[in-house]
């Protein structure tokens, strides 16, 4: 429910990263986001049908503080000439990497 969801968001160390170019790679995302701390994992958002990147990903840090820094300093700056948007995510679950393309 909603209260649970909000609690998860307050503790989360995972970010949803959107408005990426379809060509932006995991490597590039790693390079930029590791400026804010040690990254646990990156999960690329994939097109449901073609299984190719489709403009979003999840970045998970080890600590809340690092993730907060990414929101402070990366949200609204550019990667591959596109303005990156970051948001808190309640935590990645299998299947959520498939977007609508």
């Amino acid at each position, binding site marked *: 429910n909603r209260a649970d969801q909000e609690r998860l968001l307050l503790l989360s160390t995972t970010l949803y990263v959107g408005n990426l170019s379809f*060509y932006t*790679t*995991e*490597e*590039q995302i*790693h*390079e*930029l986001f590791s*400026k*804010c701390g040690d990254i646990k*994992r*990156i*999960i*690329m958002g994939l097109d449901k049908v073609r299984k190719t990147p489709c403009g979003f990903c999840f970045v998970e840090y080890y600590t809340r503080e690092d993730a907060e*820094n990414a929101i*402070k*300093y*990366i949200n609204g*700056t*550019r*990667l*591959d*000439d596109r303005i990156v948007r970051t948001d808190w995510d309640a935590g990645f679950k299998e299947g959520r990497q498939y977007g609508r393309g």
Partner: protein
Amino acid sequence: KRRRVSENVDIEDRLESLITRVGEKSTSSLESNLEGLASVLEADLQNYKTKILKILVECVAALPEKMAVYTTLVGLLNAKNYNCGGEFTELLVRHLKEALKTGEFDNALLIVRFLSDLVNCHVIVAGSLIAMFDNFIEVTLEDNIPQVRSDFYVYAVMASLPWVGKELQEKKEQEFGKLLMSIDNYISKRQKIHAPTLRVWTSDDPHPQEEYLDCLWSQIKNLRANKWAEKQITRPYLAFDGVLCEALQHTLPQIIPPSHNDEMSYPLPRVIFRMFDYTDVPEGPVLPGSHAIERYLIEEQLRRIIFKHAFDRKDCAASLLSYPMKNKVPLNYMIVEVMFGELFLLPRCPRLEIYYGSTFIELCKLQPGSMPQVLAQATELLFERIDSMNLSCIERLTNWFAYHLSNFQFRWSWDDWSSCLQMDPELPKPKFIKEVLIKCMRLSYHQRIVETCTEDFAPLIPEKPQSNFKYEKEGSGSLPGTMTAHQLIQAIKSKCTPEETMVILKDLPNPLKEDDETDPTYHPLRIDVFVSTLLHLGNKSFSHSFAAIAKFHNILKLLADTEEGQIWVLRTMFEVWRSHQQMMVVLVDKLLKTQIIEPSAVANWLFSSEMQPEFTKFYVWEIMHSTITKMSKHVDKLQKEVDDAKDKLDAYKRRINDGLEDDDDDDVPTESLIERMEERLDLAQNQQKRLFLIIFQRFIMVLSDHLANCESNGIDYSTPWYKWCIERLQQIFLLHHELVYRYISTLETLLFTSDIDFHILEIFQQFCALRS
């Protein structure tokens, strides 16, 4: 009754909001706002005195940029209500003593300055402030204290003088003169062995890079010569002179600095970073000279804004640009200089590097007509002077510049720097360009960088990153592992179990094995075939490689069960991925995290002869520092676990002693569990110490070799390689200074002994002087 409580809360909130917001932008004048607020507070004093005093005291440390607003307010309150002024002073002094005792030195500094300004507001007697200053200066006479202690107390006095110098000169000329003489005496006899370690530039040309106390003292002496007149400090109390003159003043109680103990960590010294003078500023207001007090006052305030607004870069940029006296100085130049000063601060920059980078981007967005030009001019200057720049600063500059370019379509007139193409590529300028391009590529892609530069830049353009798998190359048939590698590929592709791969590897002969001898400590061929095949199959992305490592974790651990084996894993990885630096950085990271390899293996590998050609490349040191950091995080984690477990057990014992029954003692750790945890911690701490010893020993070896070789061949030792190497040694000391400091006596007796070359020893001595 409940209503009464909530009413009180409402009023208290309203008071807090009124007090904290006074001095912000308003339709009426500051004077009338202050007058109004003083009357409101006076009326509320009867019922809310404690709360009001508490809020006011909190403003001292929290809102230093509005200090004069609050000193004036306290002055007005004191004029209306003498006791209130006394109680405020008493409370503030208590906070000062507490701050000095607990080592909150910046807060202490702000309180000292506030007390000084209260002399101007007729709240405090000038003579009693001098008495406090005298007590502070007396610290310089103490025996067996580190210089950083006396530095702090002298700095606290000096940093208050721009505010109160004039008043003290007028009211207590003789005592004040004596105080200034004592300071001058201290400044002239201070040790400055640490200064070279903290300098951004080794050269004083074109701008001297001064030690912070020296610089401030020169500025204060100039201020004194100008009869303590300055143009930067706002003094709203001047408007209330008539009222304040009538007020009765309080005498500060005796404030004696708490005595020294070895646990206390005082602020580290600094070197003042300067990159501009008035000739760099094209038109408009003039940049204050480096020994003008205005330069200090503005720099200090800008630094506070930058440090404080780290939670919001947009807010930071806006606050910097709305600096109150912006029309009197070339503000953009000062902002850029102070921002770079913070970014380059040694030993470490105060905030994440990306904070400064992203704030620069905001500054450019807010002032697109001027900020990008100033920043480009600054970049040009920094590049011009890069030969004498400290390596850590070159590295931070490289990271910032690539990041900045990636936010502005990589537009830069590289051609202006084309003279570097003819230079030795190991010199700082070409090296900087090359590393910037590598970082740009890591944020974008190879082709983009090729298109960004003209063709003649080809020598500085990074290689296209790709994996190199020797077992599928032409002519690989003659390699001893090729058949096995192909078998392995087939097996892994058809989803074999990890154990099945071991069977395939089993028949490979060990090239290290000689007849009838016992087994060698590792099996280079098995490692080579397995690791290179695994990395080759996972070469599509980081995630693919990580998945491969995770799946075959056990096999990797088995193959790399000795340090030699671990180093061979790293060598194999290097062979596969040598053109993809970022991949190597993340792979080493992964291998460490999964405990397939140990930190000491990484250090030994990076210093090995095969890695010598890579030694001056930045990524090698990215790996080294992240290895050290990972190790220390591991130790910290184990330490915390031990501490937590001990706390839990102690609490449990207390409960039992108090006769409290405890139902859920399930998660109370046992003594023997704690013992085991302590053993693990001990092991990790030894590992950590060993890591540092390896690193320093290897440094001493390579540097000694170089110096001895140069001497016997009669050539100058000061080559580009030497600069990179000796400054990397310095960087290890500085970046991890808290940690290294713990080993200082071991290092002194084991490694940095008097028989090693002075050039190496000097680096160690400068480091030791940082806190002495």
